[in-house]
C-alpha cells in the first residue's frame, strides 16, 4: 500500500524540436499501469505541447497532441499549467486542448483536468511530490 507514490512529470520544452515531449508522454502512459498518483506540469515552452490546432504536416513528424486527450482514461486528472508561462506567451486557457476526465465518484461527470496555477502555487505542489521527473 505504501508503495503508492506521488509522481510529477514536468514538461518544459516545445513539442517537436526534441524528443523530450513525446518521451515524457510515453513514460507517463506506461507508468500509469503501476497505480501511482501521477500529475503533470506544463511550464515554459512545454505549454506548446498541449496547444490546440497543432499541424505537423510540414515537419514530417506525427502530431501526437491528440494523445493527451487519453490521459483522463489513464487516471491522470491533475494537469497543472503555470499561469506566468501562459501569460508570457500571450496565451490563455482557451488556447489549450480541453483535457477532461470522468469522475467515477461523481456519477462519471466530466471534469476539467487542467488547473492554471501561479509559479508560487506550483512550487508548493512540487514540494508535496515524492518523485519529480523533468523533461
Amino acid at each position, binding site marked *: 500500500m505504501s508503495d503508492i507514490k506521488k509522481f510529477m512529470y514536468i514538461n518544459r520544452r516545445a513539442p517537436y524540436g526534441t524528443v523530450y515531449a513525446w518521451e515524457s508522454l510515453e513514460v507517463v502512459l506506461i507508468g500509469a*499501469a503501476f497505480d501511482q498518483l501521477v500529475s503533470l506540469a506544463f511550464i515554459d515552452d512545454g505549454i506548446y505541447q498541449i496547444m490546440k490546432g497543432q499541424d505537423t504536416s510540414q515537419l514530417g513528424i506525427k502530431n501526437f497532441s491528440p*494523445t493527451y486527450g487519453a490521459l483522463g482514461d489513464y487516471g491522470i486528472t491533475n494537469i497543472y499549467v503555470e499561469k506566468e508561462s501562459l501569460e508570457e506567451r500571450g496565451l490563455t486557457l482557451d488556447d489549450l486542448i480541453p483535457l477532461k476526465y470522468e469522475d467515477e465518484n461523481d456519477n462519471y461527470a466530466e471534469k476539467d483536468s487542467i488547473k492554471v496555477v501561479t509559479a508560487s502555487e506550483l512550487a508548493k505542489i512540487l514540494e508535496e511530490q515524492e518523485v519529480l521527473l523533468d523533461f
Partner: protein
Amino acid sequence: MPIEVNGKTMETDEEGYLADLNQWEPAVADVMAKLDDCQLTDSHWEVINFLREYYEEYQIAPAVRVLTKAIGKKLGPDKGNSKYLYELFPYGPGKQACKYAGLPKPTGCV
C-alpha cells in the same frame, strides 16, 4: 513475416503487427485470425472497431486496463471485464485485438 490479404502482400513485424497501419482493411483481421486458428464473430468485431475508433481519436492503442474500462462504458459491464475479453482474445485482449485492428502494440503493455 508478410501476410497475403485479397491478393496484396503486407509486411508485418516480428510479432505479427502490421508494418504500415494505413494498409489495414477488414480482411486483414480475418487473415490474422486464421493464422491464430481463431474465427472472428460480431463480438470480436465490436472490440476491433472500438480500438480503431480509439486510435483514430487519440493516436494510441489503449492499455488493456483502459480498454476494459472503456468497453464496459460503451458496451455494458457484461463485456467490460477481463474474463469476457480474454475469452474472445486468449492471447491478450490488448495485444491480439490491436494486432487484428492494425494498430501498434498497446502503449502501456510492458
